[in-house]
């Protein structure tokens, strides 16, 4: 899971509600941890979905988002899908790219501590186990970049720490991590922060970032 890929996103305009937000060209280096900050409804999710190529936008080509599309892009979703009913190991196996490598599969399972529940239905496991299962699936994909949308919003203190540690390990392996988050403490530990404001998207340095620095005038108290 190592890479030295640089990811460059194109500049485009995105529609959030009735507002049009201009997104500049951004560059993310290998192993960089990037936070996306913004108030509720500011457009963090919309930005992520544009970058994943899930929203059609006339100001950019549909899939021409990342410089290198030959490498898989990981997407971590930790929210429960109530209907899905697979075994834990089935879900992890979905991440397999190309030929099946049983050794890599077992090592990911043990790394995420899923061996004990591998033959359990995903409906019977806890939220923390669910998160670990989804992490293992993403790891099987061996992506060089992972995008996430508030993955820890519903998790407890312990699993927030677990997740942050996981992100750090990925980053040390050279994986670029981009994550929308409301967690100010975590945002401070990132390499850079993409702030989604009312009309524009700005790059902030994480050292002096506070939520007050986001220019969201539309909902300020008058």
């Amino acid at each position, binding site marked *: 899971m190592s890479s030295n890929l640089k990811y460059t996103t194109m500049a485009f305009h995105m529609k959030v509600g009735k507002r049009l937000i201009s997104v500049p060209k951004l560059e993310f280096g290998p192993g960089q941890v990037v936070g996306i900050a913004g108030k509720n409804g500011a457009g963090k999710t919309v930005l992520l979905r544009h970058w994943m190529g899930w929203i059609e936008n006339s100001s950019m080509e549909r899939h021409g988002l990342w410089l290198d599309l030959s490498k898989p892009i990981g997407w971590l*979703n930790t929210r429960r*899908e109530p209907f*899905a*009913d697979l075994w834990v190991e089935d879900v992890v196996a979905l991440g397999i790219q190309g030929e099946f490598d049983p050794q890599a599969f077992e090592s990911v399972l043990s790394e995420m501590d899923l061996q004990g529940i591998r033959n359990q239905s995903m409906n019977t496991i806890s939220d923390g186990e669910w998160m670990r299962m989804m992490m293992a699936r993403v790891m099987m994909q061996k992506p060089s970049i992972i995008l996430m949308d508030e993955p820890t919003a519903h998790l407890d203190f312990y699993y927030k720490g677990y997740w942050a540690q996981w992100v750090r390990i990925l980053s040390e392996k050279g994986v670029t991590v981009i994550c929308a988050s409301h967690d100010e403490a975590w945002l401070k530990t990132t390499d850079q922060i993409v702030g989604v404001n009312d009309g524009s998207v700005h790059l902030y340095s994480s050292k002096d970032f506070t939520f007050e620095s986001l220019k969201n005038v539309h909902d300020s108290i008058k």
Partner: protein
Amino acid sequence: MALLGGGALALAGYWMQLLFRNPLASPSILGVTNGASMGVALVTMGFSVWGFPVWPEMVILSSLMGAVLILFLLFVVRWRVQSLTGLLIFGVMTGHLAGAVESILQRWTDKGNLSGLVYWSMGSFDHGTLQHLGYLVGVMVLSIFWMSGKAKALDAWSLGDDTARSMGISTQKISVLLMVFAGVLTAVVTAMAGPIAFVGLASSHIARLWWKGRSYQQLWLPVMITGMGIALYCDLLSRCLGIPINAMTSLIGAPWVMLWILKNKNHVF
């Protein structure tokens, strides 16, 4: 005949549950069966009024059009109606509409036709001819092979649109496939044996009780076998007791679903 019909309905129900990501989705609940029988009623009555002969292919085709029409309607509103409960109610309502059209047709037709249609709507695995059976086997083999090739994509699809798309799966293609095959199987069985409820709904849940595997590759065969078993059992019972098969599946199926909902208090529908 009962075996094949039950297996087909079970698969159609399983695929519809996957398509709508809802354990309560099934041909009979979402009104697809009603759509199919509306199609059959339209053709058999309309044609007899004008004095055209009614071929079995016409019946199958009209049933297919009715079923796919309802499924397509449901699928279009799926993107507008975000809540699954809303979608289920929408399906029940389209079923009612199709039922209304059918009963208007029944009122207008002559007595000979009416009794034929009423007997047909009670359901029976006796009406089918060898020709019917041929069609059914054909579409079953085709759809099973096609879907088995998509087993991994179907598992990914069940994890939600975003997760599936992040793995490079075309969610549009999968949903169209599920819709078409579920519609075709429902339509062919309905054209041949009348509207039969509950087999499609219950089979996948009962299969999960006795079979451990959960992925599509592991589950489709047990689901089909369960559907075959239920249909055969109900068919035998209905013959012994002299109860129409549609009533039989409802008599057994409805209390079972009620119990199942009461037991699964925490399940999100």
